[in-house]
């Protein structure tokens, strides 16, 4: 199967911390890949190095066979991103933000449809700053989908959503996945990771401490439930380093 995101031996340090330490990632078309780990584990830095918004110290990255720094314009017609932090103008409305986003791309989906699917059609004229946390998060997913991308990066996509809203998002992402969309996401919800991710990479202090499927993660741990296995990995990575 075609590899859409390929990361080899990626490393990145800030002044005092090694934020990402020799991380490998390989994601095939139509797969959902989960980057897991506690706050500060290096997930966002990894994503930013993959996207080229931060420069890695070493390692190679390609998305859809392209280098994100050299082929930026071509690549980002087909790849879209939802960063962890919000980025929108003061006083901008939902419709305006969607319209501006749409105008940046050659091809795009009908955002009124997308807003409806995510239960935001009545917020069309509202200011983004007045939406609730969950509504904002859903809007950012809509924004990421407007360009009809082949690959999406979603950093902490469901943080701040209620249980029902999270389920709705999973369902929609599963549908997109079935249509061949490649998704790289970070999440703190293990039920979500279990439901969505084909493969996961668990990071701790920038290092990869588990790489494989959710089933493999459970099987190589002494636990039955994935959440327990995840906690076991993040607590006691030393034992398991060899098995990666």
């Amino acid at each position, binding site marked *: 199967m075609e590899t859409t995101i390929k990361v080899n031996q990626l490393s990145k340090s800030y002044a005092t911390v090694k934020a990402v330490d020799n991380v490998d990632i390989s994601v095939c078309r139509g797969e959902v890949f989960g980057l897991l780990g506690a706050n500060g584990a290096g997930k966002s830095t990894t994503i930013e190095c993959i*996207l*080229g*918004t931060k420069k890695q110290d070493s390692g190679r990255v390609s998305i859809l066979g392209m280098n994100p720094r050299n082929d*930026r*314009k*071509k690549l*980002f*017609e087909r*790849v*879209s*991103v939802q*960063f962890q*932090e*919000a*980025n*929108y*103008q*003061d*006083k*901008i409305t939902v419709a*305006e933000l969607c*319209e*501006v986003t*749409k*105008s*940046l*791309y*050659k091809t795009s989906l009908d955002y009124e449809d997308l807003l409806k699917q995510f239960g935001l059609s009545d917020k069309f004229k509202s200011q983004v700053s007045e939406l609730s946390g969950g509504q904002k998060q859903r809007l950012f997913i809509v924004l990421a989908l407007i360009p009809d991308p082949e690959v999406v990066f979603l950093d902490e996509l469901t943080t701040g959503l209620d249980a029902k809203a999270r389920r709705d998002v999973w369902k929609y992402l599963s549908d997109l996945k079935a249509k061949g969309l490649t998704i790289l996401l970070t999440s703190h919800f293990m039920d979500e990771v279990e439901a969505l991710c084909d493969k996961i990479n668990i990071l701790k202090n920038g290092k990869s401490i588990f790489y494989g499927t959710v089933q493999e993660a459970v099987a190589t741990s002494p636990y039955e439930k994935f959440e327990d296995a995840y906690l076991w990995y993040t607590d006691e990575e030393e034992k398991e380093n060899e098995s990666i």
Partner: protein
Amino acid sequence: MKAFSTLFKTELKLSLRGMDMFIFAICMPIVMIVILGIIFGSKPAFDGAEYTFLEQSFGAVATIAICAGGVMGLPLVVSDYRHKKILKRFKVTPVSPALILAVQVAIYALYSVASLILVYAVATIFFGYQMSGSWLQFLGAYFLVMLSMFSMGLLVGGVAPDIKTASVLASVLYFPMLIFSGATLPYEVMPVALQKVADILPLTQGIKLLKAASLDLPIDSVLLPVIMMIALAVTCIGVSIRFFRWE
């Protein structure tokens, strides 16, 4: 092109929703020209002058909007959009984050031109103003002033590490220039010592150019201001390109 026009429309709406530029770039120059018109009417600029005080002040009042947009509006919006990671967000789209800067420059240019037209209309209709010089030269000087003020603003917005620094720097540039360059307080009523200090401000030089063009004065001392303005613009643009912080 589609991206530019959509962004332009949206950013202009957002800017108008904010009101500050409407007040400082549109209302303030009109109030200023009305005050000067009422106080000085058609009095000559000085005893024996061939032109009125109002005619002499027109070029100066026309720069109020450039000053507000260039050294206040631009630095604040650039540092705000960097802080909000909007510039960074554009890096993961097919368009360059420079596009949103271009849009902002276009918006402030629009405010300036709108202000020029309104000030001219008010001065002409209510106070019998007439441009005795050449419009071509005046507009040339006007866009040169705009270029140098805007490049200063982009530099401040582009290199200031945070919004607070940007707004302090913007105020340090804006208020002295607004008051002492002749844009509001007429240069001619300042004591000579103050005029000497004011001459350091780039806007003072720009206003001298505009006055010379609008009053059709002899072009003896135009070269120095022109060189100063161009040098300032080139320096600021060069430094901005080299040191601009996108995030």
